[in-house]
């Protein structure tokens, strides 16, 4: 299991700027292990949902084209201090993680 996500939210007026670091190998399934020579299996985040006070604001389908340790940055309008921002992901091997943080 990778490190837990890191999240940082800054409020600029009524816009919350959300930065999320997700730690995940995001293997393309094309890479060979340098020691064994075996193909490193496909392992990538398939689905990402970001919520604002429980309501989905981002519903993304990712592929193995996204690089390792994806960095996600988005802005939510109509945010105020105390609002909850949640991020959750599931990958192709059934692993998942989520994080929640408060604006302001």
């Amino acid at each position: 299991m990778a490190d837990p996500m890191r999240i940082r939210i800054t409020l600029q007026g009524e816009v919350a700027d959300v930065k999320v670091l997700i730690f995940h190998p995001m293997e393309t399934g094309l890479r060979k292990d340098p020691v064994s020579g075996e193909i490193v299996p496909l392992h990538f985040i398939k689905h990402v949902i970001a919520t604002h006070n429980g309501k989905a604001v981002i519903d993304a389908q990712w592929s193995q084209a996204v690089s390792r340790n994806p960095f996600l940055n988005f802005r939510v309008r109509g945010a105020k201090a105390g609002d909850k921002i949640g991020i959750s992901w599931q990958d192709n091997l059934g692993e998942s993680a989520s994080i929640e943080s408060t604006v302001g």
Partner: protein
Amino acid sequence: MVTAMLWVGGVLASPEQDRLEIIAFFGNRFGDLPLDRYVLGSMMVNPDARAQYDSIMEFPPFQADVDRGRTLWETPFRNGHHFADCFPDRGRNVAGSYPYYDTSLGRVVTFEMALNRCRRQNGEQEFTYEDRSTMGVLTAYARTLSDGMRMDIRVDTPGALKKYEAGKALYFRRIGQMNLACASCHIAHAGHYFRDEIISPTLGQATHFPVFRAGEYLYTLQMRYQRCMEAVRAVPFPAGSEELNDLEYFHSYLSNGLPLRASVYRK
């Protein structure tokens, strides 16, 4: 010729003379830039790269590695002592004084050597200098305790001067199949293009290590020296060797007065 400048009429220039000549040389090349700007390396002449760097440094992707280093720093040894006990002010604002010349040892001591000395003196095994998962992340955190500190390298005894001169000689020596010296690129061609990259000047380089290349791959200063040696197809000296320690001593002195910032992003 650059080398002629620093060897005035056969008499070896003093370290302070070297440093001032280098600053004057780059002042000519880069114009009237504030000295502090040199810590950015080639980004000092590339505003777009600088903007991207600032953006990434707001939320560095390698933060998890630095935090692992923090855990290593804060975890007590088996005898109950901590790394912080080995340094003045719990390790804050010390890294800019390294390397220094230890008269009793007759060797240059780097910050990483001091970390290992702390382990050894407290009954623990020393870390391998090239091992990212131990010494790498440890120094990635420990050096950040000195962020903002101005480099303050001392060369004030005859023994120290000898080691400084040895490092300087290596800096200017052509090595490897490509027959290049550090100075060939980082003084003579600083600011010029090497393939698609702008070469950084030697001034300011020693202030900003370790770096995380592509935000992920940790390199201490001596690991970086090794990569450069490999790039000119020379066999690299081991990290922690006298050769690289002396080189780091000379190289760090040149950045005296510039602000330290550890664990930064590089492409």
